[in-house]
């Protein structure tokens, strides 16, 4: 797999830049979590940068991308401003979702990043629905649906693959196999650990790629998307990868050994790709340092932006629960007006 040729140097450099940005962004997000600037759960994708960038770069601008609760990297790879992703983590008004979603629920409609989702396996039916809309409306767009190895055990996995194959929908299901469903290792949660084989029984051909190799991930996803788009059938891609950090920040990692983590770190996708680019003359070593410095600067700026952004105003609490119109004229028209019912904005932040 590693012998797939590199793309043109400017393309390879952009991939490295984006992978570096994701790495530095995630590291900083972790620091901000430790400083209590970020609340709730925080799931970092450190170690999975090649899977993210390789697969997202295979998409056209008009294709749909849908992901999980580990989705900062997907938003960044799709082009969402790091400032707005960080502001979302901070729960600020200028966050991509105005602070309503948080880390697990990124979304960027103009870039057709159709969301991170907090329910394991919940996004597979949505992806098939988006592919159905593309098919129905007669567009050439495809949908890329990312989920983890844990989600492969949800009922929606089988249900959605069956329906997508039955209706010949242009969707690529990509299982990001990072070896763990939270703290339960692959061999402890799956009877069949070759996850790409799981689609065959549903009529969905499967293929595996090296998720630590951005080039292999890119080429594999391109071919899967081509089949989805041109042959009108879903494909299951299994990207083998590893997360270097815990499931979330609240994870003591007692389910795996330091040796195993260290072994995978030898294959750090950022290091291996960067070294290969220098070795093959695409990006000189000093330029890699420059790329890293710029990524850190960008993330510095994102933190400053997020700090400066205001928290959402209390009076905006009920914004966008409904699309308002003739039938729903305001939150009050739907629900209680009684003095005895505590309304959120009366409590204040």
């Amino acid at each position, binding site marked *: 797999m590693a012998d797939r040729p590199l793309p043109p140097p400017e393309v390879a450099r952009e991939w490295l830049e984006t992978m570096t940005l994701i790495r530095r962004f995630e590291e900083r997000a972790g620091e901000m979590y430790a400083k209590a600037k970020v609340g709730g759960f925080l799931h970092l994708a450190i170690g999975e940068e090649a899977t993210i960038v390789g697969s997202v770069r295979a998409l056209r601008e008009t294709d*749909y991308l849908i992901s999980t609760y580990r989705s900062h990297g997907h938003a960044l790879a799709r082009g969402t401003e790091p400032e707005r992703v960080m502001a979302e983590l901070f729960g600020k008004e200028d*966050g*991509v*979702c*105005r*602070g*309503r*979603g948080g880390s697990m*629920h990124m*979304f*960027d*409609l103009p870039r057709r990043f*159709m*969301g991170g*989702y*907090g*329910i394991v396996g*919940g996004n*597979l*039916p*949505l*992806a*098939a*629905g*988006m*592919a*159905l*809309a*593309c098919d*129905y*409306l007669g567009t050439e767009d495809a949908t890329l649906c990312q989920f983890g190895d844990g989600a492969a055990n949800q*009922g*929606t996995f089988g*249900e*959605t693959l*069956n*329906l997508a194959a*039955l*209706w010949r929908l242009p969707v690529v299901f990509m299982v990001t196999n990072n070896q763990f469903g939270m703290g339960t290792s692959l061999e402890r949660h799956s009877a069949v650990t070759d996850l790409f084989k799981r689609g065959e029984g549903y009529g969905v051909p499967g293929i595996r790629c090296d998720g630590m190799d951005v080039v292999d991930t890119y080429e594999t996803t391109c071919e899967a998307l081509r089949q989805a788009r041109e042959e009108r059938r879903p494909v299951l891609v299994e990207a083998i990868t590893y997360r270097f950090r815990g499931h979330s920040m609240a994870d003591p990692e007692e389910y795996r050994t330091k040796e195993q983590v260290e072994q995978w770190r030898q294959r750090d996708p950022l290091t291996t790709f960067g070294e290969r680019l220098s070795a093959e003359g695409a990006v000189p070593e000093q330029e890699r340092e420059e790329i890293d410095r710029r990524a850190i600067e960008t993330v510095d700026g994102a933190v400053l932006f997020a700090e400066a952004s205001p928290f959402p105003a209390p009076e905006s609490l009920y*914004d*966008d*629960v*409904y*699309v308002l*119109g*003739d*039938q*729903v004229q305001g939150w009050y*028209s*739907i*629900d*209680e*007006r*009684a*003095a*005895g*019912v505590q309304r959120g904005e009366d409590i204040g932040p």
Partner: protein
Amino acid sequence: MRYREALNAALREEMQRDERVFLMGEDVGVFQGAFKVTAGLLEEFGEKRVRDTPISENTIVGMGVGAAMTGLRPVVELMTINFSLLAMDQIVNHAAHIRYMFGGQVKVPLVVRMPQGAGHQLGPTHSHSFEALYLQVPGLLVAVPSTAADAKGLLKAAIRDDNPVIFIEHEYLYGQRGEVPDDDDHVMRFGQAAIRREGGDVTIVGISRMAVTAQRAADLLASEHDVEAEVIDPRTLRPLDLDTILDSVRKTNRCVVVEEGWPHGGVGANLAALIQEQAFDHLDAPIARVTGADLPMPYSKPLEEIAYPHEPQIVQAVLATFGDV
């Protein structure tokens, strides 16, 4: 026109009106719907727009959500409301929450239709009434039409609305006849209750099929007990036309809420709270509730008959508000 035919007409008209409207569900096409609501639509609109699905409720609804987010207006049929429990994740965690949690960037114009109700000896997995479950969820609209005219007018409104709608039909009502305006413009608005019968002595609020049962009980109250009941059918629970109910209660000073679902956390429990919060001084008696029995639905006919409300229980509850029982 029968209730099921009114629903069928609504679907047909909206599909003719808007190419983006399509149907998805178990046996909605070749079989024409488990209750024949979709009869003739496959023939008229073809397989692209009338789609038979596998038995995968959560995924069918979820695909509807995804398609609604990306430009279509799906109408998903679930065979009974009990089966909708398999789709609870997609209905609550996704359909209802997506607009809010993504900061208003996207809308989910999805209708999920399903029938509910007891009376056909279908036992504990096919007979319940769950409007109270959906009433609880912000982000959803909830309709409970009890007449053929409302079935048509509200379904058309549901399809045209940009919010996710839980559209709760009733198995008993499918065969009931009623006057239905046959013009395409018979589109009703959510949040407008109907006063089915005027009266000055007591307000009876009936939900779904119980709006019909309540009217029969009101006739008995008038003929046998000289009590004139005002019967209100809210028609939609979200948004709720609380004003019409409050106006009536302020006039009659008594209220009985009738529903087929369970008592705890039910529609009646909710309405009783809302009414006492805003019209406490107008009440001459505690608000009464008549509900389905607090148990899984039994199969055996005599047991099933006493496990959901009929006219005598409503009459008794009304008389009790006068201290006459």
